């Protein structure tokens, strides 16, 4: 089961030319957001790289992340990368099922002890472990067992990274993110609903190429992809500065491609690479398609109020609370005045 060949050997065996390999390396550099000048270094690193074993665990999720990842038609460059890892367990994709599947997982763990990567999509219910089980094993148990000898964990998608929809208010299953359970090893968060497939492959490529995990921000997200906001890289940004906004989805501004801030765009507070990497083989991204960013790669994005509420809208209570405030102010003010008047009356009486 364990493949000892280097990536160079695998590609050569497939009859890929050196030019093809260079083209692959350029794509990898681009994927890792590294400058093209890095291509020779990547080439030499990849030649001797060995295929890491990957175990993919799916918990409370919708399979959207896997869909996103497999949406790219094979064989593409991303697909090639999947050729270059050994995806030893993925209960949606693998042919094996039942005991055989679980056996494959145990075998992969055994053979690659301390070196394999665990990819997780979906959140883990703590409210009642029985809410989500695979082969009779609760999610939390399977996670703990699987990560025990892993090199690192990659949380794919907002559910695994931050709790996502299952963790949204009122969180009936007590869903938590992976990094709330896995504390003693590196956890890379690749949030997004779904995450950009290229970002998943890029992290794998990084691990494959340099044997290390990327530089992470305070939410455990790779800085190379989550270092800047959508707003910062948005081609509609100049319209924001000019004060030209679409007011509705079908007005003149919307047709002219003006800024979607007023329609609730979360671009300014959402860190992701959608505006540059884009989706569907670089075709487009939500804003380019005329819809504001929902901020799906930010923690708790489901609980941030209406998607179409501008971000500068205050998240505060309604009119009754303010009415109470007015009444309270009136009561205190009237009491203060009454007290002063009593002091005056006393003075006048005393002369």
């Amino acid at each position: 089961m364990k493949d000892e060949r280097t990536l160079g050997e695998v590609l050569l065996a497939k009859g890929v030319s050196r030019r093809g390999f260079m083209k692959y390396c350029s794509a990898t550099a681009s994927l890792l957001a590294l400058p093209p000048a890095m291509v020779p270094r990547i080439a030499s690193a990849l030649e001797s790289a060995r295929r890491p074993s990957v175990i993919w665990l799916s918990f409370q999720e919708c399979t959207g992340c896997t869909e996103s990842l497999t949406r790219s038609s094979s064989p593409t460059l991303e697909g090639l990368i999947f050729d270059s890892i050994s995806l030893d367990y993925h209960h949606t994709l693998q042919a094996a099922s039942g005991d055989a599947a679980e056996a494959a997982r145990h075998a992969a763990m055994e053979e690659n002890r301390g070196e394999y990567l665990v990819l997780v999509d979906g959140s883990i219910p703590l409210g009642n472990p029985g809410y989500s089980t695979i082969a009779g094993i609760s999610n939390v148990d399977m996670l703990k067992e699987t990560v025990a000898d892993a090199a690192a964990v990659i949380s794919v998608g907002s559910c695994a990274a931050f709790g996502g929809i299952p963790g949204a208010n009122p969180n009936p299953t007590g869903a938590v993110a992976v990094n709330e359970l896995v504390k003693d090893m590196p956890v890379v968060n690749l949030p997004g609903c779904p995450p950009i497939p290229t970002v998943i492959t890029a992290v794998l490529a990084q691990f494959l190429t340099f044997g290390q995990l990327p530089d992470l921000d305070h939410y455990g997200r790779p800085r190379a992809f989550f270092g800047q906001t959508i707003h910062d890289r948005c081609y509609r940004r100049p319209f924001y500065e000019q004060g030209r906004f679409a007011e509705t989805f079908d007005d003149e501004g919307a047709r002219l491609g003006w800024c979607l801030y007023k329609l609730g765009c979360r671009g300014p507070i959402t860190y992701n690479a959608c505006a540059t990497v884009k989706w569907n083989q670089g075709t487009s991204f939500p804003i380019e398609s005329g819809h504001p960013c929902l901020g799906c790669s930010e923690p708790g994005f489901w609980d941030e109020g209406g998607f179409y509420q501008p971000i500068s809208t205050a998240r505060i209570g309604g009119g009754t609370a303010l009415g109470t405030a007015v009444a309270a102010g009136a009561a205190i003010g009237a009491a203060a005045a009454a007290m002063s008047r009593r002091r005056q009356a006393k003075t006048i009486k005393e002369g």
Partner: protein
Amino acid sequence: MELLDFARGPALQFGLYAFVIGTVWRLLGILLLAAKPDHSAPRKRGGILAALKVISSRSVTAREFRQDTLYASVLGYVLHIGLFVIVFLFVPHILFFKGLIGLEWPGLPNNVIYFVGVITAGVGVALLLRRMTHPVLKLISNFDDYFSWVVTMAPIITGLIIPIRFGIRYETLLAIHILSIAVLLTWLPFGKLAHAFLVFFSRGTTGMVLERRGAKT
């Protein structure tokens, strides 16, 4: 995001409540004090119209005083107009108000707002320096004056930093900006910034008292 959530949630909410409670409290605490009727025979009509007259007329310094107060009034005008522009004509702010009161009005391009913001901040500094050096202002100034200055300038400065970033995350800066507004709202009714609403009452009172005498207002 946690700080931002706190800022635009509980912090801002507290600020708004404090603002509303404080404003009503202060106004009623003043207006419900004993009022003495004026039995003198009026020369002209007083009342609300007289109040409105002085509320608007006192916005302009009388010609006779203009030269002596030129520097301070120009700075004062620029500060107030600047504050008005950045508070009410910046699109994200308008959307904030829309969320609050449901009304919306056209804004200005952000670059204009940034420019006005810088001018306003500069004028704020000039006014502070004047307060710290002018013998009259030095004498009559107290904690309220300086604290109110800080509280007023903080949202302008924090707002201006947002597009610059200085390597700080957007939502952190936004959160700090909103927190500074929460502080401003909380303080406003309790200190001299209350002149934002008291000005109508003090000018109006003078209008009603002096206009009915036919005296100069």
